[in-house]
C-alpha cells in the first residue's frame, strides 16, 4: 500500500517539495516536517518524546558533579552548501566547539530552524542529514528544537540556531582573562581554510586546487588536550575574524600583549595564494575546525605533543607568546624580521583594488 493511502496523508515530497508557510503553521504539515525529516535524522530518546523541552539526567563527569556550560550560536552562512561542508554540519560543529573550548564535555544540542517559504525540501533534507551525521560523530545528540517558516523574501533559505549544553568538571577553569605574560600561544592547525572556501564559492571564484572548509567538532581533540593535565589558561576557536580577532579579544580580556611569529603560523599554500589573489590576510579569515590554546610555558611541549598525536591536531604549532603590554597589542614578527601590529579589523576584510 502506498504511503499516501495508509494514513490518508501524503508524505513529504523530499525530492521536489518546497517549504511553504504551512510548514511553520503548527498544523499537520509542521508535524510532518518534524517527524519525517528532523526526528527521522536527529531522533533519540529525548527528541522522540516530542515535548516542548527535554528532561535530561543531571550530568556528572566520571562520577563527579560539575557545572553546566551552555552556549548558543546562530548560523546564517551563504552559500548554504560549500566545499567541505554545509550549514547543517557547521551549526553542530560551531556550538559543540563553543561548549568544548570552555573545557566542558558537550552533552546535548537544541536546534532552531528558520525556513524560507519556497525552500526546496531536498536541500533541507541534505542539511538535516548532514547535521545528524555531525551530531553522531561528535557524540552530541539534538534533543529539542523548533521550526518557523517566514514568507518568501524574508529569509535566506535556512537559518539555524543551535544551543549546546555541556558539563565542566569542578576545578577546571578556562577563560580569556587568564592569559599571563610568558604563556605559550598554540594553534591546532592551518589558518583560513573555512573563510576562503566560503569566499571561493560565494564569489564564484574557482581555484586550480580545491579549498575545503575545515569545519569539524573539536571536542575529541580538546578531551585529549585536557587529559595531559597541562596548565591550560584558555581555549578558543578562531571563527569569525580569525586568529587576529580572537587573540585581540584574549589580549584585551587578560590585559596583556601577544607576540606572534609569522614563520610558525601554518597557512596552506592554496589558501595563502587565494588570499594573495584577493588581497586578504589569512590571519583574519574564519576557521571552523581549529583552536587556539594559551598554556603555561612549562607545559607547552607536552600539550603540543598530545595535540599532534590527535588527527585534528597534526599540524599544531607554537606560534608565539603572551607578553607584557599595557596597550594590549597583538604583534607579529614577520618572516622578514620586521614587526607589525595584528590589529582588530575595521569591519569586514574587503578585496583591494590592485
Amino acid at each position: 500500500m502506498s504511503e499516501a493511502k495508509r494514513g490518508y496523508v501524503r508524505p513529504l515530497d523530499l525530492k521536489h517539495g518546497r517549504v511553504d508557510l504551512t510548514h511553520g503553521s503548527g498544523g499537520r504539515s509542521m508535524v510532518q516536517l518534524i517527524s519525517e525529516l528532523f526526528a527521522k535524522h536527529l531522533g533519540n530518546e529525548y527528541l522522540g518524546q516530542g515535548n516542548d523541552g527535554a528532561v535530561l539526567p543531571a550530568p556528572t563527569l566520571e562520577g563527579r558533579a560539575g557545572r553546566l556550560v551552555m552556549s548558543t550560536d546562530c548560523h546564517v552562512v551563504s552559500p548554504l552548501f560549500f566545499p567541505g561542508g554545509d550549514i547543517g554540519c557547521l551549526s553542530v560543529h560551531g556550538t559543540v566547539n563553543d561548549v568544548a573550548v570552555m573545557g566542558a564535555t558537550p552533552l546535548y544540542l537544541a536546534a532552531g530552524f528558520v525556513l524560507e517559504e519556497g525552500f526546496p525540501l531536498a536541500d533541507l533534507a541534505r542539511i538535516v542529514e548532514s547535521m545528524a551525521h555531525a551530531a553522531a560523530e561528535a557524540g552530541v545528540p539534538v534533543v529539542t528544537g523548533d521550526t518557523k517558516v517566514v514568507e518568501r523574501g524574508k529569509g535566506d533559505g535556512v537559518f539555524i540556531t543551535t544551543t549546546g549544553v555541556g558539563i565542566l568538571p569542578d576545578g577546571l577553569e578556562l577563560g580569556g582573562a587568564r592569559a599571563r605574560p610568558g604563556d605559550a600561544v598554540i594553534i591546532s592547525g592551518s589558518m583560513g581554510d573555512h573563510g576562503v572556501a566560503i569566499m571561493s564559492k560565494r564569489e564564484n571564484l574557482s581555484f586550480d586546487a580545491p579549498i575545503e572548509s575545515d569545519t569539524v567538532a573539536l571536542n575529541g581533540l580538546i578531551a585529549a588536550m585536557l587529559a595531559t593535565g597541562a596548565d591550560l589558561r584558555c581555549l578558543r576557536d578562531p571563527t569569525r575574524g580569525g586568529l587576529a580577532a580572537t587573540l585581540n579579544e584574549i589580549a584585551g580580556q587578560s590585559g596583556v600583549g601577544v607576540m606572534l611569529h609569522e614563520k610558525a603560523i601554518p597557512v596552506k599554500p592554496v589558501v595563502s595564494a587565494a588570499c594573495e589573489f584577493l588581497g586578504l590576510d589569512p590571519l583574519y579569515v574564519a576557521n571552523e575546525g581549529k583552536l587556539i590554546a594559551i598554556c603555561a610555558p612549562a607545559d607547552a611541549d607536552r600539550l603540543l605533543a598530545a595535540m599532534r598525536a590527535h588527527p585534528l591536531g597534526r599540524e599544531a604549532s607554537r606560534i608565539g607568546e603572551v607578553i607584557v603590554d599595557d596597550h594590549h597589542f597583538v604583534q607579529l614578527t614577520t618572516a622578514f624580521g620586521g614587526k607589525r601590529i595584528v590589529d582588530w579589523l575595521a569591519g569586514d576584510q574587503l578585496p583591494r583594488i590592485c
Partner: protein
Amino acid sequence: MKYIDEFRDGELAKNLALSIGAEVQPGRSYSFMEFCGGHTHAISRYGLSDLLPPAVRMVHGPGCPVCVLPIGRVDMAIDLALNHGVILCTYGDTLRIPASDGLSLMKAKARGGDIRMVYSTLDALQIARDNPQREVVFFAIGFETTTPPTAVAIQQADKENLSNFSVICCHVLTPSAISNILESPEVRQWGTVPLDGFIGPAHVSTVIGSRPYEFFAEEYRKPVVIAGFEPLDVMQAILMLVRQVNEGRAEVENEFSRAVSRDGNLKAQDRVAEVFELRREFEWRGLSVVPYSALKIRRQYAAFDAERKFKLDYRSVPDNKACECGAILRGVKKPQDCKLFGTVCTPENPIGSCMVSSEGACAAHYSYGRYKDMH
C-alpha cells in the same frame, strides 16, 4: 606560492638590508616616496621600515585609488543607487569610502540601495545581461591598472548593444599625480619634502611601461625605480635608489623587469585610447583639482557614460578642515602629525582619505605601525 615565496625570503632581505646600510653615506639622509599604495601596504605589512637604517625614510604617496577619490564622486554613485534605482557595481574597497551625510556605499546598501561588489568588469556586464529591465552602472575607479578592463567592458557592451549598462568613470593618471606632488605649492612653500627619489608603481607600469617616468627623472632630477609589490622588490628598489643618489644619477631603472617593459602593454594602451580621453580637470581627494589628471568616456561611447545618461552633476565636497590628508599625501607631514589621527579618525570611522583603504598612509600606519608611537 611559486614565484611569490622567492620574493619573501627573510635571509635575502637581511642581506639587502645590510647592503643598504653599507651604501648609506654618513651624515646623509634619503627620503624616497613610494607612490603606490601597494608598496605602502607591503612596507607596513612586512615591517620593512624596521630593516632600514634610520637615514632612509619612506614617504607614503597618493597612489591609492580609494584614498584619492573625492567625496563628491562617491555621492554621485550613492545618488544613482538610492534615487535612480540602478544596480551599482563596484570593487570591494570602494564600499567603505566616507561620503556626505555620514553615508558610504556600504551604508547606502543597508538603506536599500542595490549595490554589489564585483571582482571584475565582466561580472558587472553579466549582471547587466541578467537584469535587462534594470539599469546597471559600474562605478569605475583606479589608476592605469584598472582602466583597460573598464575600456574592454564598454566596448563589449557596445558590441552587444547592452543599453542598460553604463560607467561612472573615475579613472586617474599616475604621471599627473607625481607632477602635482613635485610642483605643489606646499612643497615649494615649505621646501620640507626632501624627496630624493620615487619607487615607481608595479601594476600601473605593466600597462604604461617605464617611459612616462623618464620625464621626472630628467626634468626634476629625481631617480625612479619601478618595483614589484613583494617585500624583496621594495628592498631591492631602495638599494637601487640609494646607489643613484650616491652617484648623483637621476634615471629610470626597472627592478620589476619580470613584468614591466619600457613601452608597457601597447594593446591595453590602444584600448584605453579608443574609449577614453583626457578630462580637462579632476578633483583628487587630498590633492584638490589636478588638471588633465583623469579620463572621461569619449563621445563615441556616450551611451555608456553614466554621467551623461543620468545627467549627473559633480559637486565638490570639502574634507574636514582639520584633516591633514593633503600634506600627508604630498609627504610634507606624517600620519601621526595630524590631530585627527587615531582620535576621531580611525579605520572604523575614517574622516580623511588616507584612513580609508588599507593602502592609505594613515590606515597602514594605524593598522600596522602605531605601536611604535606608543612604545
